[in-house]
């Protein structure tokens, strides 16, 4: 079993626990923005896609990489845009003008 695998497994398990503890505290009020925000963060796979497309090894891998760049970057941009739009709408009773 490669050493990389073990260190990645450590990171995965620790990040999973951090995620569990942090997300447990998110107010149910915000579960929809939570999902769109984690979607945008998950779109960080764009960094791997950029390298695959940018290496330009074979035509096939470049095409696959380019599709991955477009798909994940649209998630990243769209996810942040819609999350912010949603969160802007949440106003408390105190801040409401009457």
């Amino acid at each position: 079993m490669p050493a990389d695998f073990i260190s990645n497994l450590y990171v995965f398990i620790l990040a999973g626990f951090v995620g569990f503890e942090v997300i447990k505290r998110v107010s149910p009020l915000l579960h929809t923005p939570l999902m769109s925000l984690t979607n945008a963060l998950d779109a960080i796979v764009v960094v791997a896609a950029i390298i695959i497309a940018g290496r330009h090894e074979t035509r096939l891998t470049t095409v696959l990489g380019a599709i991955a760049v477009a798909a994940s970057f649209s998630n990243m941009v769209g996810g942040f845009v819609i999350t912010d739009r949603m969160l802007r709408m949440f106003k408390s009773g105190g801040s409401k003008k009457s």
Partner: protein
Amino acid sequence: MTALALQQYLDFAYIAAVVLFILSLRFLSSPTTARWGVLAGEIGAALAVVATLFNPEVAQYKWVLIPLIIGAGVGIPLGMVHMTAVPQRTALSHAFGALSAAMIGIAEFYVGTAPVTRFQMGEIGLEVIIGSLTFTGSLIAAGKLQEILPQRPIVYRGQNIVSLSVLAAALGLAVALVVNPAHAVLFPIMVVVALIFGVLLVTPIGGADMPTVISLLNSYAGFSAALLGFVLNSKVLVVAGALDGSSGFILSLIMCKAMNRSFTNVMFGAFGQVQTSAVAAKEERVVRSASPEEAAAILLAANKVVIVPGYGMAVAQAQHKVRELYDSLSKKGVEVRFAIHPVAGRMPGHMNVLLAEADIPYDRLIEMDEINGDFPQTDVALIIGANDVTNPAARNDQSSPIFGMPILDVDKAHTVMVIKRSMNPGFAGIDNPLYYLDRTLMLFGDAKQFVGGIVRELGGGH
């Protein structure tokens, strides 16, 4: 700068991104700090993307920059959709995320840099299978939510056996590739079989279960990204994937609990089947109905009103009229709050977003567990477009298909008013005994028009 030093700068950028991602989710714990969360996430993501563009492995920029522009061009309109369309947008973004994870895994299989070891082949195989099935599964879910595809569960005899055989075939092909990675021809077949399994997985699941399905797909998309991090030895992907995966997993658990179902039940026991028998044995019972004038008079006489909104309210586009009702009752000194069931709407938390969009303050939106104890002291419970989540049969009728599901105890309020088009049973087709109680008044009509009528009677919606 030497290549090694540059690599270290890139690693620091990724570590900073990871820290910002965790902070981003941390800020989301309260609506007052939540927008900081978006900012933290944006900075982290921008840092990681810009750093990657400096990676010496990126030899040419044409096929990086063009897709980035296309991605932004697709992403911005998808970020501007109407709030009722957020569930299908979310399903579509799960599909995009899974697509890109699968594409990178496939590319990694075909790059010639290093021979693929058995261990790597196992990782790639699993990653590509999960990515592919999540891609097609999410597309089907998006199609159902957009109502391009039928919302009812599509079922046939022996379905679970067929679906599981297809999954077993995909996994079998992956194992064959691990045993002998030289059999490269099996790889594309494995991808196609996994794509087919995704379709089979979501097609039988009905519209009522969409909040659970969308959360599960969220979790799959996250875990496929984390697995990709294992394949590429990229810790930033492992962390982001683990965060996204655990978020989707927690939401799935909450949704299952809110519907009193298990994962296996959602995935393999189509919700639509049991219901026809439940409706059969009903005798003619009397219901009492009321006009907008009568409803307005009752609401005015009340001290405490709880409004129970369901997805039907959003379908009728009634949320802005509901806001006017909230405003005019509040002005007249009536305390109005909203009771939110965890599965109200088409995805977790959807109803809160729809009401926030209509400018209803979020401190008026109360979760089920918190508000249920208040119903006995509530003068009027006004139900708009919700049905099953108010059905007392879930509490006391063991033969009901929804028995055991946690519900809003609206039947304990002094008066119950239900705005409904007709007496037809709702989405899940289950009869609701609430409508036949002595304290219940049925308000027949379109939600938007009826609420508008009440607002007019109260004398001024503005």
